């Protein structure tokens, strides 16, 4: 089933806004795209419009956090990155309770092309001290993880796609910083997040048919990384495969490779991108082009296992 990350986010924000009076939402004129417009309709007095100015938005959110609010900043992931220095120098350095929840990450903004497709953000956020980095797998994961990050004191980057959320869970109980083990397997371990979790399950099915037993983890929290689950699951397998809709540099693949190289040296195959995207009328055609469909990934895994 294909759902929408942003729809799930927009609705969850309203539901959590009912419970949390301190929750405020900031927008840089993309509310109808990020679906924070639902929050504006429900709580106009807690919705702040700053116009097309992501840098001002992030620093304004810092001020709101200093004054005791829980500000949620949403934008297209690619354009929120222009405020990286504001995020670094004020939000992360001062450990402020700002929640950065962009949509349109990865290839999800398929029509808009390489300017809008964001394949570097996890790396840029993961490197920041104090920052928690979360990449929900599907639409049902959005609300429980949103609740978790709002209840956490401190800065968080929670990366969402636009639509094309492939269903993984029914009614998941997810805990921040704790990987979700979806399948056990003896031959290889696949560590995925975001939309690639659903793809990883398809890959595991296909590998099974070919006699390869694959475990699958949803590593929704990239930072802090659940090393315990990773090392426990990786111990028995020959190869660890990471799958993400992001650059293979510095994101989930980087994080997993860092941990394994220090604590459990093991062959690691990182599936992701190393280029900019391009526009495509069809999202899945784009994934195919960049080698992120399950058929392409299975072939790659067979080549190394």
């Amino acid at each position: 089933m294909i759902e929408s990350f942003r729809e799930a986010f927009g609705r969850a924000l309203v539901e959590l806004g009912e419970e949390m009076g301190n929750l405020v939402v900031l927008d840089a004129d993309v509310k109808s795209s990020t679906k924070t417009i639902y929050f504006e309709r429900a709580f106009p007095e807690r919705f702040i419009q700053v116009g097309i100015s992501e840098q001002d938005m992030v620093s304004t959110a810092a001020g709101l956090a200093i004054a005791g609010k829980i500000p949620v900043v949403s934008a297209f992931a690619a354009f929120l990155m222009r405020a990286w220095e504001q995020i670094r120098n004020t939000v992360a350095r001062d450990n402020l309770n700002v929640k950065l929840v962009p949509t349109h990450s990865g290839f999800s903004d398929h029509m808009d092309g390489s300017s809008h497709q964001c394949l570097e953000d996890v790396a840029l956020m993961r490197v920041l001290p104090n920052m928690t980095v979360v990449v929900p797998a599907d639409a049902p994961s959005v609300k429980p993880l949103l609740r978790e990050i709002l209840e956490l004191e401190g800065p968080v980057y929670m990366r969402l796609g636009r639509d094309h959320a492939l269903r993984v869970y029914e009614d998941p109980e997810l805990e921040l910083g704790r990987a979700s083990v979806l399948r056990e397997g003896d031959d290889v371990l696949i560590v995925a997040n975001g939309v690639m979790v659903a793809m990883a399950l398809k890959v595991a099915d296909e590998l099974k048919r070919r006699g390869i037993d694959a475990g699958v983890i949803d590593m929704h929290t990239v930072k802090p990384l659940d090393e315990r689950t990773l090392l426990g699951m990786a111990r028995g397998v020959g190869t660890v495969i990471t799958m993400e809709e992001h650059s293979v540099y510095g994101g989930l693949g980087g994080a997993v490779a860092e941990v394994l190289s220090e604590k459990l040296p093991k062959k690691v195959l990182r599936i992701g991108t190393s280029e900019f995207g391009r526009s495509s009328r069809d999202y899945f055609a784009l994934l195919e082009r960049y080698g992120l469909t399950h058929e392409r990934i299975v072939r790659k895994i067979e080549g190394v296992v």
Partner: protein
Amino acid sequence: MSEVGSMVKLREMLSPVSNFHLDSSETCLGIVAAVLRRKGKEDVVILSKGHSAPAFYVMLHELGLLSEEELYSFADIDGLPSHVIRGLPLIEVSSGSLGQGLSVANGIALAKRMDGEGGRIYVILGDGELDEGQIWEAAMTASHHGLDNVIAIVDRNYFQLTGKTEEILNKEPIADKWRAFGWEVVEVPNREGEIERALREVEKIRGKPKVIIARWER
């Protein structure tokens, strides 16, 4: 302490560190003094031009919020940081990277309004800092939302890091720019008494944010 006394203190503090940002701290002393003396309990002060931290520290010392020993620990590895950081007395937000303090002030002002709280937010800006685009993003946000508890003070000292402001990037007409962005503007010579009078004057103006341009005339 007299203005001259503060200046002496500042120079003593900075002489072991090659006069680190001495000039921009000197021109900021009167501004920081006027603001900190005017500041009420609910008010917040943001030193957006974080490199004038030495001036801020001298005034904190005068107010009894930093000891002499702390003052002279400036930029020592475990001493006072060279740019202000959150957690120091009266410092709500770290700075050092220019152009961000006005946006932070707006955020605090918006939160105060939502909570029905009083209090002003003073933001000390440099004239070179006005080169940063984010200042003007924030200027639009403040006037759009009618944040009349935001009071900016521009340290118009005509110098920025590598030269005279008008040679690096023309700033004038500064007052007209702020007015065009919907702000109430007051221009004064950069002297503590003048700034203090301007702070009292702008407090009476409702409905829009205010900026005091403090021109260095020495």
